[in-house]
């Protein structure tokens, strides 16, 4: 980005405009940055950024005869800080909602860029509608015509699209303003929406039927007939419009009225209405005839902590609303969506890991993966504990005993002693003994040594790994129970990473769990032996638990292909309290070896199995 023009001090006029805009929203903000000529470099005459700040180019307005409306421009930008998106995290959440809606409408559009555009439109709609209401309320005395309100005048000057534009979404956006601001039709946009863009037909060339071997010709003919039929229906689908600008503009206006104060929830509805327009534009030149609007410029990628908060928001996890145009009867009779496959509907509505990674690629893959697995695991996390070693507690009075010289003087039971009449130490002196009560059952934290296989035969965390999910649930559950954990990720020889000692830092633990080498499989028996050699057998007080997440390649743990260390697994098992293998091993190839050396086995196949596997582990660890 080229350098912006220098900031100049506020002129008295600009200061009074700023004060008036602040008074409109009844907030206080730091002074705006005034940068004459910034619109040329930045592309928009004003913008906002976080932490809350506002930048305006007054020259852009003055050149267009809008100098008097500077305060409305200020009011618009302040509105972004007060109403929509209001905070950086909400801005990211709105983007996320839009990305979900776009993903459900089309698989081909880059969700990130489209989402940013839709978020800008949605935020501006909310802010401008509210500013118009506030400006109308601010007027005292004679009622003012709608088109004389500052924000409406600004809109009339800046929003109308150039003549002949083909951008149908922009038409819907302008028409929605006409409805919201109560302007006559044709003020901000032409009376009729631009026509739908034409789709180019893809022509496939086929090998002449004569060149197909005789014996296949009949089958080939049937296949070609089926292909032609499929192409015909696909073309028909492309021709059947999902967009109806005049109706959609009214639906957008409804959405703005309904969600005037909840931008994040309303974003899903707006996205569902607007996303089909992006879908029908795909293939056209990028941003054809699209006027510049974006005044949100915050391009810093989401941090790991922000990702966690975004993915955890229930509003972003709920199903997308149905397109309001599809909901006709309140009793839902004859709903076309009722007949669609439920599974397919769900799949399109939650962002998969791949889509999430694409959307937040600037945040870094590790951070996204960690946030994603943590969030998926969250529903299954519960404290994992074990019974504490029983600590006897006294308190029950026992039989009377002789108090001897040398016993603590405080133990002497004087009433009993004096009952005999004389006090002869060691002969008539008595004391009351104490018996142990039933030990109180208490739970205490666990310490878990977790080994996770990250060889090439395991599923990459990017593609939804059951092992990583199970490991995350397990690790977070141990932490919830107050325990500590040590994670070791292994692949081929010498490819071992993770934590040198037990710890409680979730970020470090999850980073270690989702680490992926993607090479051969060789369990680090040398490290395993070094960690546990020479230790006394585990007792009640000092328990040792080992869990290994792997697949059928874990035969290497029992010395297969690593003969010098054969027997390490068995030796180590003798000093452990529990040793459990969580395996993605359809053919149960490791079962025999594991049983020989005393390891328990839990099987895991899909992501959906992970919670059950973890429940089994919780039982095993509890003892």
């Amino acid at each position: 980005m080229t350098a912006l023009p220098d900031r100049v001090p506020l002129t008295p006029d600009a200061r009074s405009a700023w004060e008036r805009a602040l008074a409109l929203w009844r907030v206080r903000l730091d002074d705006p940055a005034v940068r004459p000529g910034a619109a040329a470099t930045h592309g928009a005459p004003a913008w906002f950024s976080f932490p809350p700040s506002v930048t305006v180019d007054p020259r852009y307005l003055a050149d267009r005869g809008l100098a008097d409306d500077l305060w409305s421009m200020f009011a618009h930008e302040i509105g972004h800080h007060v109403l929509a998106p209001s905070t950086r995290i909400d801005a990211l959440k709105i983007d996320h909602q839009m990305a979900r809606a776009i993903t459900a409408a089309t698989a081909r559009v880059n969700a990130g860029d489209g989402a940013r555009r839709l978020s800008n439109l949605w935020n501006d709609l909310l802010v401008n509608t509210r500013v118009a209401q506030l400006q109308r309320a601010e007027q005292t005395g004679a009622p003012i015509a709608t088109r004389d309100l500052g924000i409406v005048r600004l809109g009339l000057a800046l929003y109308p699209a150039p003549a002949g534009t083909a951008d149908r979404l922009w038409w819907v956006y302008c028409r929605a303003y006409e409805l919201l601001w109560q302007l006559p039709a044709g003020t901000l946009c032409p009376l009729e929406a631009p026509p739908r863009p034409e789709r180019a037909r893809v022509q496939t060339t086929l090998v002449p039927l004569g060149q197909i071997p005789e014996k296949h010709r009949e089958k080939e003919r049937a296949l070609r007939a089926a292909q032609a039929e499929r192409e015909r229906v696909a073309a028909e689908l492309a021709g059947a419009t999902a967009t109806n600008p005049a109706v959609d503009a009214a639906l957008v206006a409804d959405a703005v009225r309904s969600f005037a104060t909840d931008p994040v929830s309303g974003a899903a509805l707006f996205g569902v209405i607007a996303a089909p327009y992006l879908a029908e534009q795909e293939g056209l030149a990028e941003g054809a005839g699209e006027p510049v609007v974006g005044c949100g410029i915050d391009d810093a990628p989401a941090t790991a902590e922000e990702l966690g908060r975004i993915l955890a928001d229930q509003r972003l996890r709920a199903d997308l609303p149905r397109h309001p145009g599809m909901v006709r009867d309140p009793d839902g009779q004859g709903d076309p969506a009722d007949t669609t496959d439920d599974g397919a509907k769900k799949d399109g509505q939650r962002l998969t890991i791949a889509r999430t990674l694409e959307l937040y690629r600037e945040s870094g893959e590790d951070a996204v993966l960690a946030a994603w697995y943590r969030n998926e695991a969250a529903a299954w996390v519960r404290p994992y504990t074990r019974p504490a070693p029983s600590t006897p507690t006294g308190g029950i009075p026992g039989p009377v005993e002789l108090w001897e010289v040398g016993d603590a003087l405080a133990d002497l039971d004087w009433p009993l002693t004096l009952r005999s009449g004389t006090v002869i130490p060691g002969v008539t002196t008595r004391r009351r003994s104490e018996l142990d009560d039933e030990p109180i059952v208490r739970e205490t934290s666990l310490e878990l040594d977790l080994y996770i296989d990250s060889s090439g035969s395991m599923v990459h965390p990017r593609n939804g790994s059951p092992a990583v999910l199970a490991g995350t649930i397990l690790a977070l559950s141990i932490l919830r129970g107050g325990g500590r954990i040590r994670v070791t990720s292994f692949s081929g020889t010498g490819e071992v990473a993770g934590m040198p000692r037990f710890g409680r830092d979730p970020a470090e633990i999850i980073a270690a769990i989702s680490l992926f080498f993607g090479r051969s499989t060789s369990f680090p028996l040398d490290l395993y032996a070094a960690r546990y050699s020479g230790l006394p057998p585990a007792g009640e007080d000092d328990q040792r638990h080992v869990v290994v997440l792997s697949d059928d390649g874990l035969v290497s743990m029992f010395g297969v292909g690593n003969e010098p260390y054969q027997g390490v697994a068995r030796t180590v098992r003798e000093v452990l309290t529990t040793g459990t293998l969580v395996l993605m091993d359809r053919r149960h190839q490791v079962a025999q070896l594991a049983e020989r050396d005393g390891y328990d086995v839990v099987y895991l196949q899909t992501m959906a199995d992970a919670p059950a596997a973890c429940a089994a582990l919780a039982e095993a660890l509890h003892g």
Partner: protein
Amino acid sequence: MADTEALLAAWSERSGGESEAWARARPGPSLESVAARISRVPQEFLDERISLRALAGDVLGGQIVSAGFDHDSRVRQGAAIGLWLVASEGLIEPLDPALSTGWAALAVDALALRVAPVAAPAQWTSDDERRTEAARTFLLWCGFVPAGEDAATAASLLAACDSLARDRALAEAYEGHRHRADIARTLEEARRKEAAARYSSE
């Protein structure tokens, strides 16, 4: 309940054309003042036991066409709210200019036969947009454009909030979506058939 189409037909017979209404309209009370009156309609006016004929006789001193359809509760309530607007000028204070200087009976029929069949009168008090629609319709047929608007603007804004046009557009959009969903299902079926027709050249 009377058929919606029959009510609308009765209205088109009664109204005598919308363009004539716009032509004769002159500046009237503000939209907000009429809308505010609508939301203040007293329960007594909406009471099912009140005879619409008697109410119209009391308020207007004459009869209204919609009284012939008073077995339909939508018509009854719509007309009652219209009569309340006229009566409120005596009970609260006259609007400026007074509604009674216009075609009050025609305006009451407009509410009862044109708006009530497509937007239930219960919504006029709960939904801002439906209230605006009722107020704009009432003003137009009473012979007014809302204060501060010209006839073209007022016509466009009434068209934008017209429930009848909106219902038709939504029905059309709904058909579009349903048609699309049908084709999408056909496409799934065609894809399945194509997959089944694939063969191995071995």
